[in-house]
């Protein structure tokens, strides 16, 4: 295992300290329980957004804390859901008195821990709402699974809802908007290499030199099927087709297109994939009006890519375009 770390058990804490040094103007890092809050929290009269999940997906979620996006993020151990006390303390620290939204990725652990935290926060009189994100079309959504996993749409929901919350939207609007974003977004991902969890010290699965793993999640879990490596244009097609069919997206839809790197993939390759993805969208008669290309929701050092498409409406576009000032995402005033 080749990593720039001191010891597996200290990675999360030390990275948090590094973030605290690097972004003292934007965020405040609380230890024990661990959470990251925006520097000016709580913002009175603003709906607060809290998210969280296992570490190893950086910049998600801590890199999205700041004006116009999240009010707090709770990092768990690597790939392990954080605990309700973290979420409770984060919720209390950022509550502006007009409601808090928990944005939860659909993994049993995340869902259960956030549920408990919400119960506890409500007992303390905070108006907590939760939206579970489940946009991964690689998982069959049926009674016989834990349901689709939450992947790329999480980043979009956090940005869009964060933008509207900052602009003063009331809690019910923000909650509905978050559900709407989740309902209109679909994602699919693929890995060229496995990742190595520091604690485990060895790759999460084996993959031959000419193979890729199709339909992966973000925890180093194997995907839907293993197949021969394909050229980037074909890979983009294989990801876009199930995404477009699933919603389904229709000719004339206006979309946001998000090409995400899994951590070990260089930016030059993401642009090659983005080119193919936007061409495919155009061929399907979709108008791409918002775009994001980069490694925003990662699986440690995994090489790979995921694509997310979101059918936009006016509110979503407004939320997306709104100013955001966080360590990882920044635009506007």
């Amino acid at each position: 295992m080749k990593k720039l770390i001191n010891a597996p058990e200290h990675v999360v804490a030390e990275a948090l300290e590094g973030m605290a040094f690097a972004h003292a103007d934007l965020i405040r890092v609380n230890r024990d329980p661990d959470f990251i809050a925006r520097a000016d929290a709580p913002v009175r009269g603003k709906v607060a957004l809290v998210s969280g999940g296992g570490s190893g997906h950086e910049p998600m979620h801590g890199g999205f804390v700041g004006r116009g996006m999240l009010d707090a993020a709770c990092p768990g151990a690597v790939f392990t859901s954080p605990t309700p006390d973290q979420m409770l303390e984060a919720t209390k620290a950022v509550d502006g008195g007009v409601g808090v939204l928990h944005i939860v990725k659909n993994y049993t652990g995340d869902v259960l821990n956030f549920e408990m935290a919400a119960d506890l926060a409500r007992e303390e009189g905070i108006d907590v709402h939760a939206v579970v994100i489940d946009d991964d079309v690689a998982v069959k959504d049926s009674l016989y699974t834990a349901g689709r996993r939450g992947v790329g749409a999480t980043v979009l929901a956090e940005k869009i809802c964060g933008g509207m919350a900052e602009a003063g939207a009331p809690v019910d609007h923000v909650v509905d908007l978050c559900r709407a974003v989740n309902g209109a977004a679909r994602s699919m991902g693929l890995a060229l290499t496995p990742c190595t969890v520091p604690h485990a010290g060895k790759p999460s699965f084996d993959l031959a030199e000419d193979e890729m793993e199709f339909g992966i999640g973000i925890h180093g879990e194997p995907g839907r099927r293993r197949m021969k490596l394909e050229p980037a244009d074909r890979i983009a097609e294989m990801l876009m087709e199930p995404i477009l069919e699933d919603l389904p997206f229709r000719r004339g839809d206006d979309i946001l297109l998000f090409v995400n790197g899994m951590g070990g993939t260089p930016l030059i390759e993401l642009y090659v994939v983005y080119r193919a993805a936007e061409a495919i969208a155009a061929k399907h008669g979709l108008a791409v009006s918002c775009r994001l290309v980069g490694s925003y929701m990662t699986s440690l050092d995994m090489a790979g890519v995921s694509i997310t498409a979101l059918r936009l409406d006016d509110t979503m576009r407004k939320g997306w375009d709104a100013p955001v000032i966080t360590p990882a995402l920044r635009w506007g005033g």
Partner: protein
Amino acid sequence: MARDATALALWLRHANAMFANEQAALNALDAAIGDGDHGANLARGFAKVVTKLDEATQATPAALFKLAGMTLIGTVGGASGPLYGTFFLEAAKAAGDAATLDDAALAACLRAGLAGVRARGKAEPGDKTMVDALIPAIAVLDGGGSLAKAAEAARDGAEATKPIVARKGRASYLGERAIGHVDPGATSSAMLLACLAEAS
């Protein structure tokens, strides 16, 4: 047989020793159909429970269970943290302010714990989860069987998760590929009951 908080604390101490020993085995079970952290999660949680037990004696079984539940919730994370945490919190509620628990009262606590796990996780029997170990164990107690028999039933229940697909938790993403692997949570539940039988 009536157990006070000190006697019941032995259960949790046994469990801590068990999970410390079996950590790698549980991780391996979880690696096959999940993300490989179940043993680490429980070892971390029960170690913290024992640290807290060392700091202060608990007056009642309810206080002991509540301490265990809160500690597990705050340290385990993942799916099993809230589930085992809920198990002990519900057991605490069922224990009321009794100073000791006889067999029937202890059975009632375990029954309440199971109900809590089912309410929180919404797993049905046969979904390949810890519930598949807990249900047959409680059934034995309901029928007047001993804790030892209940622990055996839990072990059989865990074994019976091997040939089935999972419908809850991470393993459910795998579909048919989960067949042939025992569920790690069912296994840890069986271990937990074995420790209780041994401590009693």
